[in-house]
């Protein structure tokens, strides 16, 4: 007998959206009110201060310098930001997100972090994913435990099962197509390596020049701090020849979700958020991808949009001050988003302790005031109907002190 997993696995790389027609009928009746949850993990550390700029904070403009954005008009960092309230705005690339916000279907959360504050990517991601207070607190992921506790179907839109979805409960996976896009940050890191290899340096430089249509590469590499002299200036840059991956993945997720027998819980991830250098152009592009991703998911998931919450999470925020290479380094408190028709949005959530001197954590980062687990628990409890006792013990072990966040979703599930 061929299982669904095998069918999905067979489709493999390059199968694209045709896979969606093969999602087989579920044998298990759905429970509760058929609500859906998608978790999108942005690996690398999204700069919350860039995505949700606190333009109204008196310390913001000075600390951010050329990276500062303003709803009053364009700055060195980009077009006018999209004003949310007296303090916060959205990055100009997040136009669709702003629309959702206006409809009350987007809830930005500021100053959030996992319980681990050590600033290591890997440890912080492990902590976000295992749902405990420490990077090695569990070998399995909280989303897998939630899938098990809810007795629903889960789907990971990844080639390899990420920690958040790993565990004893069987979860399906669907392989996204071959990543066509090579992120600018990866290229930044590879360039000096290839520069040192006399036989490969030229081929690499030519490859970059040929892909030179990809403006992001130039943006990433032409920065004053990079000084690579790769001779890419002056080339015509019509449009990126290589498609971004996130919108396509989000559309696939939306199509899976839209099926009456689709998964109740899904996971996907994106890379390229670790903006140590030349952050403004990179995030202009990456946040556009995120925004396009929301739009693609919204369009594809129409039948279930009203019953869906998308949690966007990253492993940490970034330094309040910019560094010497027009970027930011690993920080602590960062941004999250909840989007979806079931989200109670249209406001900015999270306690903001501000950017004034003395308010920063260790004089460098935004102080994290929201434990990400509170958001996860709030959504699982109020949106998916998971009992708080289960949440506090098995899904997020030893988390009784972290109360589920309230008012995050339009409550649909009777407690």
């Amino acid at each position, binding site marked *: 007998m061929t299982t669904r997993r*095998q069918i999905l*696995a*067979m489709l*493999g*790389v*390059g199968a694209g959206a*045709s896979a969606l027609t093969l999602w087989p009928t579920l044998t298990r009746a759905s429970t509760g009110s058929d609500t859906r949850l998608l978790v999108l993990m942005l*690996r*690398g*550390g999204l700069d919350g201060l860039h995505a949700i700029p606190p333009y109204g904070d008196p310390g913001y403009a000075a600390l951010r310098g050329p990276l500062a954005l303003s709803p009053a008009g364009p700055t060195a960092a980009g077009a006018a930001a999209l004003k949310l309230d007296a303090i916060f705005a959205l990055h100009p690339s997040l136009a669709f997100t702003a629309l959702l916000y206006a409809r009350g279907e987007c809830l930005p959360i500021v100053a959030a972090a996992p319980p681990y504050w050590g600033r290591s*990517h*890997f440890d912080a*991601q492990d902590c976000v994913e295992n749902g405990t207070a420490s990077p090695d607190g569990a*070998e399995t992921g909280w989303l897998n435990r939630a899938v098990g506790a809810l007795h629903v179907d889960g789907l990971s839109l*990844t*080639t*390899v*099962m*990420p*920690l958040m979805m*790993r565990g004893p409960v069987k979860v399906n996976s669907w*392989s996204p197509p*071959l*990543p*066509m896009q*090579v992120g600018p*940050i*990866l*290229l930044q*890191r*590879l360039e*000096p*390596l*290839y520069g*040192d*290899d006399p*036989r*490969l340096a030229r*081929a*690499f430089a*030519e*490859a970059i*020049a*040929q*892909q030179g249509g990809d403006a992001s590469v130039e943006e990433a590499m032409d920065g004053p701090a990079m000084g690579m002299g790769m001779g890419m200036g002056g080339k015509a840059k019509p449009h990126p020849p290589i498609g971004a991956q996130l919108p396509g993945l989000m559309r696939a997720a939306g199509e899976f979700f839209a099926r009456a027998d689709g998964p109740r819980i899904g996971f996907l991830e994106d*890379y*390229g*958020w*670790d903006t*140590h250098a030349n952050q403004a152009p990179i995030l202009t592009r990456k946040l556009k991808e995120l925004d396009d991703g929301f739009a693609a998911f919204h369009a594809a998931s129409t039948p279930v949009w009203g019953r869906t919450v998308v949690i966007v999470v990253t492993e940490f925020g970034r330094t309040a001050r910019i560094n010497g290479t027009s970027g930011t380094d690993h920080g602590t408190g960062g941004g999250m988003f909840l989007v979806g028709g079931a989200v109670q949005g249209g406001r900015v959530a999270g306690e903001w302790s501000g950017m004034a001197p003395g308010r920063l954590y260790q004089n460098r980062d935004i102080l994290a005031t929201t434990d990400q687990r509170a958001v996860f628990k709030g959504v699982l409890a109020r949106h998916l109907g998971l009992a708080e006792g289960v949440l506090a013990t098995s899904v997020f072990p030893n988390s009784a002190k972290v109360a589920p966040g309230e008012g995050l979703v339009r409550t649909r599930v009777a407690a």
Partner: protein
Amino acid sequence: MDSDRSRAAASAVNRFGLGACPGDLARVTDPPAWLLAQVRQPPGGAPLIADLPTSLDYLRREGVVNRKRRELRLESGGAPTKAPGPDGKPVNPLAEIYRQEFGDDLRREAVARWRLAATTDTPFAERLVRFWSNHFAVSVDKGPARLYAAPFEREAIRPHWNGRFVDLLLAVETHPAMLRYLDQAQSVGPGSMLARRADRRLARRAHREDRPPRQLGLNENLAREIMELHTLGVDAHYSQRDVTEFARALTGWSMPYPGQLDRGDFDSGFLYRAAAHEPGTRTVMGRRYEDTGFDQARAILADLAVHPATARHLSLQLARHLVADDPPASLVDRMAAVYLRSGGDLPALYAELIHAPEAWDAKAIKFRTPQDYLVAAIRGGAIPIGDSPQPFEAWANRLGQPTFMPRSPAGFSDVAADWIGADAVWKRIQTALALAARVPRAGLDPQALARALLGPDLRGDTATAMARAEAPQQAIAIAFASPEFQWRA
């Protein structure tokens, strides 16, 4: 001392072998001995390929399929109409018959080969099998050879790669894959019984225009490629006359017809047809060969196998594959001498190379071909080979080295210049991302893994870039995309 050992271990595992699995570099304490042990025993992984069909199975089933297709074509008056398949796209019923019969086998063949490369604990032996497979290339873009490249490797290469070259050569040139790929199966001596009979028929039917009988004659393809590619090499001193004479001697080396396979009791896909053999004594490179039927061409092969030009050609090819694109002449000379002294004993040839100081020199370095690159990443990252070869074959395709499809009897190129291009480098970086996404995450420590795979070749800059990566998968992508991973140092 210890750094010398770790340098040699990295070369043994990454240049001679198929690329390190975690732990290999530490395990190989005596690199030359590790390599030598592998050429003195059957290669590992045999169970993975034990239950695949033989070329004789394929030949029999292909006969049945072709009959079905012929019937369908006749029924439909030439071209059967296409019907919508399960995905709604129109399907050619002729192709569908083939797919139904062989699709699953082709998939299993490909999966087995990737899995064998991914998991073998005799990776040097496996590399040599692949080397000979490419030396005696059978390209599957030629329809009649399509089913036979994989069983060819199993049946002709694997049993003989570590014996005498003459036995390997004979197994190769009598295998249905080669007989079909280089058109030997239909080569008929102009003076043979078969040709004379056909001539008489032709004369009788000369007035009939509807269907003239097939013209029978000599095909030189195999004879030429044996001399040019398989043995002497293109620079050796042989003439067109030598090629034609050899081709005449080879007539009769053929395969059973489908009807014969149904009736007869065959133990291989080779059949010597005395009726197709060109009678007479042949002279090849100044030596006379009496007409002994099948043994006439076999005697020529035996002489070609130990010809000094063959010794040089094989030594150069092997040194080029394992040491450098332009291997030192001193090394090739010594290898050729050992080859001749030993009467074409391949383990002796391998041993000479393994013991050569040139093989361990800092200048000894090779660029990974796309297949090498994929296999090294799969082994290094313990990337699971599932039930479908699809991603791996798709990557090999994109990178320009589809499995068993060099599109030329010369095989895939073995020099870096042919694989280092801007587009190729770009696609490798893309593929590095895709490969890294498949590396199992449980317990993954990218830095430790890179050290374990690259040993002394891991550069500080690469380690630093990995340390700064935003996620383990990105760090692995950097390792796979790094320049040092593109080389077999």
